[in-house]
């Protein structure tokens, strides 16, 4: 833990960026690389789903509540994982206020690498330009106060959306060359959307690439994704936070080699074992359990998990993934409160 209570007070932005680059912080930052939107916050600022996923003003207003209402050090306006897939032409189910938009992956848009056609309007499509405008609004409104985190989906996730999960996974077994061709073509979407968000004012980018523990092995990660992720770390000029759900300790060694700034890790991995594997080569963030702790339990349980991460030296604290939309506000407020409590206890003693 590189926290120094004697250090001058930092803004949320300084705190997050310092932690992402391994520098000293006045206290551990509270960071949400994915969404902390809830239905009650949507009401508070009149920014309900699905409009908050498609209208920049509402997207920015809802994202800002992570800072103004919950006290996080970062904001993240890209709540969903389908913005660029919509721009690619995927069939989207936008859902209602209380549910997440999803890609209808049972209706894939492509079958082979030859089918891939990145639309010219990728960055001007309403569902991608909305993100860029929301980032601009947040940057203008909050200046240097908070870290603005964007999101650009990795090629593995995009391939799930465009080819269907089952078809793409089978292809990765049967036809490795075509799989690599697909990833190679789709990586341009990741880079272009990422660069556009950096230019719009994003301080860091979350890069979800769902080579999840339940479906893809660590060996697969090394074979198909490690080198691509190294490329992203080199070509996107801001700290990158890789997000992969599930039990991922079997690939954390490879992830630590990518040069990315941080890995957003799931509660299926213990903080101590994860910190031991990454060995300060990459920061860790996340791990506060969503479905059981944040959604179903109380602030005391949230505090316990925050303390577990801080005790292990995890440098940024936050939920493991996009939180359930019905999560209680007191549980979310408990995260920054627990960080402050932990630091108060440790500075006194």
């Amino acid at each position, binding site marked *: 833990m590189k926290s120094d209570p004697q250090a001058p007070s930092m803004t949320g932005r300084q705190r997050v960026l310092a932690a992402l680059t391994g520098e000293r912080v006045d206290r551990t930052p509270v960071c949400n690389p994915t969404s902390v939107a809830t239905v*009650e916050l949507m009401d508070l600022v*009149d920014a309900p789903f699905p409009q908050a996923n498609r209208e920049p003003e509402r997207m920015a207003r809802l994202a800002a509540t992570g800072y103004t209402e919950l006290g996080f050090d970062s904001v993240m306006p890209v709540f969903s994982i389908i913005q660029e897939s919509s721009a690619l032409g995927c069939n989207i189910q936008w859902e209602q206020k209380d*549910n997440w938009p999803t*890609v209808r992956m049972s209706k894939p848009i492509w079958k082979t690498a030859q089918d891939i056609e990145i639309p010219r309007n990728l960055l001007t499509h309403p569902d991608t330009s909305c993100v860029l405008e929301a980032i601009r609004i947040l940057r203008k409104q909050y200046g240097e106060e908070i870290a603005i985190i964007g999101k650009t989906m990795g090629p593995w996730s995009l391939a799930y959306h465009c080819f269907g999960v089952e078809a793409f996974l089978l292809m990765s077994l049967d036809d490795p060359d075509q799989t690599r061709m697909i990833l190679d073509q789709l990586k341009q979407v990741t880079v272009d959307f990422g660069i556009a968000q950096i230019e719009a004012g994003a301080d860091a980018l979350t890069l979800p690439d769902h080579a999840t523990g*339940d*479906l893809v092995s660590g060996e697969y990660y090394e074979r198909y994704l490690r080198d691509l992720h190294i490329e992203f770390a080199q070509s996107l000029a801001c700290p990158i936070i890789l997000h992969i*759900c*599930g039990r991922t300790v079997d690939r954390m060694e490879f992830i630590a080699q990518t040069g990315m700034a941080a890995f957003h890790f799931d509660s299926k991995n213990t903080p101590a074992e994860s910190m031991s594997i990454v060995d300060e080569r990459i920061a860790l963030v996340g791990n506060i359990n969503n479905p059981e702790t944040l*959604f179903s339990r109380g602030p005391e349980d949230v505090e316990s998990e925050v303390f577990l991460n801080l005790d292990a030296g995890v440098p940024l604290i936050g939920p493991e*993934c996009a939180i359930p939309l019905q999560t209680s506000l007191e549980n979310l407020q408990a995260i920054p409160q627990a960080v402050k409590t932990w630091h108060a206890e440790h500075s006194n003693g």
Partner: protein
Amino acid sequence: MSRLQDLGRRVELQSMDPHCHDISIALYREFNGTVPEYTVHSYSELPGTAQRVLAIANGMQRLGALQSRQTDTTLQFACGNDHPLAVRRTFLECCKLADPSQVPAGELSIVDRKSGLTIVAHCLGEGQYRITADVESAVPTSVDQGAKRVAVIVNGLRKLGEMLPVQDADGNLHEDCVSFSCGQDHHPLVGLLLQRAPNVRALVREQEAAAARGVLAAPSAQS
């Protein structure tokens, strides 16, 4: 400066109210000393929100016999005790109604749709109720069927209202009786729970479906 209010612990949430612009309405609980107080609240500022929140709080007074405290939207049970599942059920039932403030309290008897039997909750005092089936009320029927339906409904009341089994002084279980832990009568609450007790499974499914909404699954877990 956060605009969130310190209303205590959220105990129930209606994510989208179909009767008022799909706003979210929540029930919060905090303790005033040892007495739990429940507040109905919405963060929405859309027109009609305040009236809707008030209507639900009024409905909870009518249907659950809660009493208003401090403000019109803060409530407590007359017994001053916590009945967490029962108050949540009261809140959710009020949210289903277009105007819960106008609905009369439930009676202590229902017609069980499955059997056609009239089921009655008889108050025994000190928070105890005996559930009986009027076997004359449905034809053809049997005493056995009546006993089975009483068992189902007793089980439903225990699950929905956290009501307790009743034993006599010798420790013998009265399988047709339930009681509130506070030892006080709550007729309107029993009337409300009695309507749902015959089909607790449907309520459990409804709650599970509501809880599953809004949880983001990884793409690998989506269809």
